[in-house]
């Protein structure tokens, strides 16, 4: 079975095609700011002439616009092609890959922090100021993502109605404060 995986939660974009849990195609964009020009063309490189049975999308937190573009594409593919879709958070991806129960990544202004229990169930997500990260000395902040572990973790997840696939933002915007 083939699975399309879309991760656009930061300026690094990753599109993968899995076959039975193994990565068979992978396209990445590293540190480019013109993601809206580049995203769909690299997606087509991965899925042209391929049949996939399900979609997994990373629905944030991270770059608001980045997450949105991955999510709108993934949910529209799932809705129009009537394919099952699952979501996984960027922080879950880091925890699963590293085995860490506390993970965090910086967006320069602060850190997105994820706290997990022993089964990698989410205890809490929050956005903290840069100087608060010292309160989480065990938090893993540099994680190389292990996509096959991420895939296996997603096997335990339930499908989501494509209409209801939406980003999680965590960080408050001006009018919410």
């Amino acid at each position, binding site marked *: 079975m083939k699975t399309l995986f879309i991760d656009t939660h930061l300026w690094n974009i990753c599109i993968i095609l899995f076959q039975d849990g193994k990565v068979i195609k992978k396209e990445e964009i590293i540190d480019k700011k013109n993601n*809206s020009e580049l995203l769909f*063309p690299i997606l087509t490189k991965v899925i042209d002439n391929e049949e996939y049975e399900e979609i997994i999308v990373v629905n944030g937190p991270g770059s*608001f*616009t980045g997450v*949105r*573009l991955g999510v709108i594409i993934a*949910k*529209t593919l799932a809705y129009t092609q009537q394919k099952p879709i699952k979501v996984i958070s960027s922080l879950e991806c880091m925890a699963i890959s590293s085995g860490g129960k506390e993970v965090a990544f910086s967006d320069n202004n602060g850190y997105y922090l994820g706290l997990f229990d022993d089964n990698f169930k989410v205890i809490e997500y929050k956005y903290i100021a840069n100087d608060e990260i010292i309160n989480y000395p065990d938090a893993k902040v540099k994680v190389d993502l292990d996509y096959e572990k991420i895939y296996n973790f997603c096997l335990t997840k339930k499908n989501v109605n494509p209409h209801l696939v939406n980003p999680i*933002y965590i960080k408050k915007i001006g*009018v919410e404060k």
Partner: protein
Amino acid sequence: MKDVYILAIESSCDETSIAIIRNGKEVESLSISTQMKTHAVFGGVVPEIASRMHTENFTYVLEDCLNKSSVGMDKIDAIAVTYKPGLLGSLLVGVEFAKTLAYVYHKPLIKVNHLIGHIYANALENELKFPLLALVVSGGHTELVIMDDDYSFKTLGATMDDAIGEAYDKVARVLNIPYPGGPGIERLAATGQNTYNLPRPVMDETYNFSYSGLKSSIINLVHNEKQRGNEIKQADLACSFQTVAIDELCRKLEIGLKNTGIKNVIVAGGVSANNYLREEIKKSCDKYEANLSIPKLLYCTDNAAMIGAAAYPLYLKGEFTDYSLNAESQANIC
């Protein structure tokens, strides 16, 4: 000739809209999900919230649009999408949504300028007769344009500072009229008299517009009256503002009609929903025996039907775009 069906997508501001248009003029189906009530709480459109709501709404709006129509995706000839100008984050959601539909259903993709969309809203009702003078009046633009043919634009003049819609919004804020300010001022003005002696914007024979002086004079007037402890006659001030703002549009349009001899006029953009504007522009056109077209109210505000109408000439010319299409926040008509 075979009928052409275009599925059009609009998300440049706070409306998520999808339409199916036949031959650039017949509206087969139109769905609009407006976010106005959400943004009203904040006194104006919050761009980040607008982008979020487009992401939440698009698949629902597509479902609604297809359910309302007998035309299925198999009959659609092209996907059209607004890519400029507007709120960048909101445009991007629409652009990526459109690319996905074009890819899944193997349809060509057409990029449409939102302002040109407002102009082609007129084609949904009457065939455009060229040459014509187009008066574009919106929150971001105030422009008088000559069109000799489809997609042939020559700007006669434009605002040198604020757009007319922007002036309406700012005056509404000074008068504590809730968002959206334009319709609020219009309602208030209808109950008042033109008693305040406000400065006329640009008393010359050029096609230039200016609304920032008029706006500032109202801000100063309200401030001074408050300091003196005088009451502002809100309805009279709204009426005085509206009279000056729209008389200026009419005066410039009449200069255009006189100098060019053109006998067809169309009005485009959100401010064309204003009834006083509709009546006064009609009088100006009658004076010069020119035909006037103004879209019905539904097509004056943002909607995808007008994007489908504007995409049709591009479809006929085969002007398609690829998956590297990006959105742009700023743009002019030409």
